[in-house]
């Protein structure tokens, strides 16, 4: 599904440069649910951004579903992101003047799907996250948990191969966090591959595999016994 070889990334800071990723090797199979952990500055977000084609590595190979991701033009990266990836952000990143349905339909709009088809599909995904009744509401009229569910519906809308979540529960209280995690677990049960960045141990323990980063290298990579989130809900 996803294969990364000797990935390096550094950012220029003034005259010197900061070496953030120092040779990452990672392989993720289809249907896995991986938590990337690490303290701030460990490079976990950078890794996720490179996997999400929002950022580019300096060197190393990145192969997504058999497709080498290298030297992409902005246009090509946009098409790949749309086709292969779904993003879930810590701060939801919904467009605040669009209602839930329109937000979910946005990736489909960029796919060039017809309006009607798009809205049907978006509504289907909203139903799936249990927010069909809230379709016409603006993000500010929804709670944090609801907003994140809308964001998840949006990430799912284009039926991506890989879901990337950057601290999906970072802005939520514990109870809502568990609800969201339960939902993400359910998606994984249905076969979606999920890659998640978090620094919370209990959230990481709800994944099937934990990768720990420190100072740009992988310290630990192990399968864990998944804690089901439903029991807390």
């Amino acid at each position, binding site marked *: 599904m996803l294969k990364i070889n000797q990935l390096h990334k550094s950012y220029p800071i003034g005259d010197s440069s900061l070496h953030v990723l120092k040779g990452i090797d990672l392989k993720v199979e289809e249907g896995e649910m991986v938590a990337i952990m690490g303290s701030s500055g460990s490079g976990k977000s950078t890794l996720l*951004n490179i996997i*999400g084609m*929002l*950022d580019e590595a300096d060197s190393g190979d990145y192969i997504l579903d058999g497709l080498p991701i290298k030297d992409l033009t*902005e*246009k090509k990266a*946009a*098409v790949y*992101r*749309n*086709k292969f990836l779904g*993003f879930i*952000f810590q701060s939801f*990143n919904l*467009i605040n*003047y*669009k209602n839930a349905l329109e937000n979910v339909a*946005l*990736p489909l*709009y*960029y*796919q060039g799907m017809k*309006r009607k088809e798009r809205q049907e599909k978006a509504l289907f995904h909203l139903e799936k996250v249990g927010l069909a009744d809230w379709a016409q509401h603006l993000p500010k009229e929804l709670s944090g948990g609801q907003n994140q569910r809308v964001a998840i519906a*949006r990430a799912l809308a*284009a039926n991506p191969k890989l879901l990337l979540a950057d601290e999906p529960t970072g802005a939520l209280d514990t109870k809502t966090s568990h609800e969201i995690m339960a939902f993400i677990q359910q998606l994984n049960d249905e076969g979606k591959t999920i890659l998640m960045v978090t620094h919370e141990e209990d959230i990481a323990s709800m994944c099937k595999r934990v990768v720990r980063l420190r100072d740009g290298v992988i310290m630990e990579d192990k399968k864990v016994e998944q804690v089901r989130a439903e029991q807390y809900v």
Partner: protein
Amino acid sequence: MFKFLFDRDTWQEVYDSFSKNKLRSVLTMVGVWWGILLLIGLLGSARGLENSFNRLFGDFATNSVFIWGQNTGKPFKGFQEGRRVQLSLRDTKLIKENVEGIEFVVPRSQNQATVVRNFLSGSFRIAGDYPLLDKVEKKKLIHGRFINQNDIDFDKKVVVLSEDVYKQLFEKNENAIGAYVQINNINFKVIGMFKTSNINMGPPIDMHIPFTTFQGIYNTGDKIGWMMITGELEYDIVQIEKDAKLLLKNLNDIHPKDNRALGSANAGKEIGKVTGFLTGMQFLTWFVGIATLIAGVFAIGNILLITVKERTKEIGVRRALGATPFEIKRQIVVEAVFLTLVAGILGIISGGWILIGLDAAYGQGDDAAIVNASVSIAVVFIALIILVILGTLIGLIPAFKATSVKPIEALREE
């Protein structure tokens, strides 16, 4: 690309991003609205002024020159300086025959005369004219007719008088046509009355009588006071004036370099000056209008730049969801063009209202200062096309700005 323009979603996006900040969108449009309003208002007023000048000059054959004799400025052929030059009918005939490009030459004699009617009298400028005068200097007749060939042939004692004379010699509402007035103790029948023109070549004439009659009562014989020369349209009236004057100098024993002996007024030249002024005003109008318009369009570009800056994160999200840089740019350019167009159309409409207002205030009546203030549809279309082009160009700046940031940096923006 065109399918995109007719896509409902495109306009939904435009509508969303404007309704998000209505006040700012409106303020942005004010710049362009004001620019095009000024352009339309100024162009229309300039056209109105031009029309009113044209109406004033409309009474004249614009390719005409008036020539009269003065005192010589140089001694020549035994004649002393300061001799009075007396033009004659023979001169007019020879000019007509020898100068190239002349449509007709009309002689005129004039004098000051005391006119009496019953117990009222006045001193007026009287001219002996040919019917052709009406072609050179159109008389606005209120009643009756102008002198005709029959009057000339039979030396009829008829007079065409101005409204001013009528006011002095007649009672209010009295019918002047058919009445008699005494000019130099000779009875003349009034056959017409004309409205005094605002513009005259030479001194204004109060009464016109047939040329031949004038010859008879003043015993002028062959002598004439003026001649009016009208050139064919394709000939240059300034050249005709030169040729005619040279011929006249020859015929009347005037030194070829004597510039004082013959006086002249060239209608073509005078009108040319005014037309030049009007052209200058048109140019100034365009300049001011377009400059204001450009300032307005820059205001739009400026605001869009701020908007794009504010929406950096949103644009980042859109790109993460699969919007290509082209799609982002296209959207911003469409917004820019849409803003300029709407503002421009509103400006054109309100500019039209201003012209309607001007017309109501200054455009009524015969002596209106601004006649039919208007702009042509072509100008409106050109203005709209300029707006679209400028809108596109100015929209490209924020559009490139929006996609110059990497999506990851855009997403980090708070």
